[in-house]
């Protein structure tokens, strides 16, 4: 009898979980935690809808596989900008109407409140994050200040950490080589531009430690394995704030992009998913996330009042990729370019690595 009871309880709760929960899929780590604290928990508390967050190494291929298999268990996913566009083109995502998104508190409609490109056919920006480089201030008191310094082994000796992949690395190399941000993608679209980027990387190739997972970059820096490394800016910020590491971010040559909330086709709780996105990408929702991680909101109205970090004292503005003083020599990732050239340039990149 007791056994039957346990069994039925388990079954009922399973059925309940399968039917009623809104499931949000994100990247885990400090990033997933920020979205969980800022969006998932408050929304569940405010609306009474059971909501859970699940982690994935990369939600984009996961939801594509679900849609293709016809077994979608995720309602909302957080994916990279280029993936939001590509999956939308491939018919994997549900379109989102920009006019359905909430207006700013002062009444500005969402279409004018969001920064350019932050809302696409199938996705809404949850934040703007950036590829930056960082160094250890205890190693270089008079630290590097420009992207060119990253490639200057004489002035700043020591190993370099770089992301193992073509995206953001080739752009960074061209920016460091003195190409103006506005011309980077036009140049990278030509064989000469690609050659030039690889030639720049050649100058430090033998001193590079390549990293793959986002958490590796601050780890390499903390271990003293590298003198400076490229990284996702939020990871460096987290290491500096939470663990007190003497890390300094150099914003010159940063390559930033939007991260997008999307809804896979056939999501089990479609209406609730849309409601969740409206809540999470409202002025307050975007502000709330920036209190947990140093990725910038994509709404102008979110900056109306200063955003304070969860420690209660640090003002976030100077730590965000979108701060005016950080945008001096900055490049926004071109999703269109990478949708077209990702495979091609990565083959070239892997081949270059192996030489």
């Amino acid at each position, binding site marked *: 009898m007791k056994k039957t009871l346990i069994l039925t309880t388990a079954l009922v709760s399973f059925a309940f979980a399968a039917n009623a929960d809104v499931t949000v899929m994100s990247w885990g780590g400090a990033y997933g935690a920020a979205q969980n604290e800022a969006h998932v928990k408050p929304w569940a508390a405010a609306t009474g809808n059971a909501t859970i967050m699940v982690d994935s190494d*990369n939600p*984009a*291929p996961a939801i*594509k596989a679900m849609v293709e298999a016809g077994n979608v268990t995720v309602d909302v996913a957080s994916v990279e900008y280029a993936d939001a566009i*590509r*999956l*939308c*083109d*491939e*018919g994997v995502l549900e379109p989102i109407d920009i006019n359905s998104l909430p207006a700013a508190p002062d009444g500005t409609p969402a279409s004018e409140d969001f920064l350019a490109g932050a809302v696409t056919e199938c996705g809404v920006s949850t934040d703007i994050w950036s590829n930056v480089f960082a160094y250890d201030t205890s190693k270089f008191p008079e630290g590097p200040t420009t992207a060119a310094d990253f490639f200057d082994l004489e002035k700043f000796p020591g*190993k370099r950490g770089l992301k*193992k992949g073509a995206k953001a690395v080739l752009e960074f190399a061209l920016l460091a080589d003195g190409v103006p941000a506005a011309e980077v993608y036009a140049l990278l679209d030509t064989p000469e531009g690609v050659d030039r980027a690889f030639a720049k990387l050649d100058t430090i*190739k033998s001193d*590079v*430690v*390549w990293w*793959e*997972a986002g958490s*590796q970059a601050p780890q390499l820096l903390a*271990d*003293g*394995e590298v003198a400076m490394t490229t990284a996702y800016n939020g990871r460096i910020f987290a290491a500096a704030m939470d663990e007190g590491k003497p890390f300094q971010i150099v914003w010159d040559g940063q390559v930033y992009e939007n991260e997008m909330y999307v809804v896979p086709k056939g999501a089990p709780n479609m209406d609730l998913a849309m409601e969740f996105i409206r809540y999470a990408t409202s002025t307050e929702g975007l502000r709330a996330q920036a209190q947990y991680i140093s990725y910038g909101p994509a709404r102008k109205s979110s900056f109306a009042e200063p955003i304070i970090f969860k420690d209660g004292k640090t003002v976030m503005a100077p730590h965000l990729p979108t701060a005016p003083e950080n945008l001096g020599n900055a490049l926004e990732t071109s999703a*269109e370019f990478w*949708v*077209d*050239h*990702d*495979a*091609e340039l*990565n*083959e*070239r990149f*892997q*081949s*270059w*690595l*192996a*030489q």
Partner: protein
Amino acid sequence: MADAAEPLLTTADGRPLRAALTAAQSRAKRRAFLLVLPLLLFVLLTFLVPIIYMLMRSAEHDGFAASAPALVEWFGANPGFDPANPPEAAYAALVQDLARMQVEKTTGMAGTRINYSVPGTISLFKKGAREAADLTPPYKEALLAVDADWGKPALWRGMLSASDVYTPEFYLVASDMKLTDDGWARGQDNERIYLYLFGKTFLISALITVICLLLAFPVAHLLATLPMSKSALLMILVLLPFWTSLLVRTTAWIVLLQEQGVVNNLLVSVGLIDDDGRLSMMYNMTGTIVAMTHVLLPFMILPLYSVMRVIPPSYARAARSLGATSWTTFRRVYLPQTLPGIAAGSLLVFILAVGYYITPALVGGADGQLISNLISFHMTKSNWSLAAAIAAMLLAAILLLYWVYDRLIGIDRLKFG
């Protein structure tokens, strides 16, 4: 004993014994089959079906064929057209299809499919589809005015090839071929990567197998010959790492071998090397080989141990008593008897090493990549067909190896433990 006169043996309830036995036996067989059935279904569903699906995926893609019916029909009627200069009718069919894609929202599917062999076409298709409805004849000039890339011979070759749902294209790409204006050709030197990585993967795997064998043989011998109480303790030392998570073991090697790591610090403090001369043992090929050898070692030790344990020591003693030196005894008597274990361990380690992916990704650095890292790259970048084609080539290579192994040593001599 009246029963002895009975010509037919019967059971207690009077049925003929033979029939009763047959019935009981077939019942037992049915029951046995029912017991195996879940496993059979499980293997079928989780192993065979996905592999068949993967193989189909590597040669089949309807992204373009399904969304461009007019052009597919035109290609069917004019298979011998000149890709360098397609006629107006071809452009008319293309514009018609582009307009249709815009309405049906299949531009992405079609563009993605062509992009696999002709980079840069996803945005080309999007732009073309947006304008298609407003274009007027002559379509050739109109479309070329939208973007001159529409006249590229390579693009027309790509569309012709993609108009068939079944295609060898992914295998060609996985063999470092590129679609050029004149058809498929070997890619440029700085773009070739797949065949090189295949070769490298097999070489590294073979090297790791040999190192594992050299390290495992003495350990297994010790395990097999020590008294039970001591060998059990030693066995735990072998099995403990085997039970530890792969990621933990890989990370442990990073901690040990990196430039600021335990081993280097020790060498510096002892004075064997100075602070500027720290050894690079991590994030390169050395790191990959060390970490993978350690992770795969138990798979060599266990089959060797199981074979060595049952080799009677009297054989070696007999050889010695007949005058053989210890080397001859080892070579002529002991080693041949361990062959099934060596073969099983080597096959196991080699096949596992060929498919390895997390360890090289974490500790490999620039030159430590293996072919499985590229499969994972294409999986995450939504080119599943290419990933499937590379995986299928890997599978074929391993099956070939298995066949060679069967011819040389015989699969029935395999002993896993």
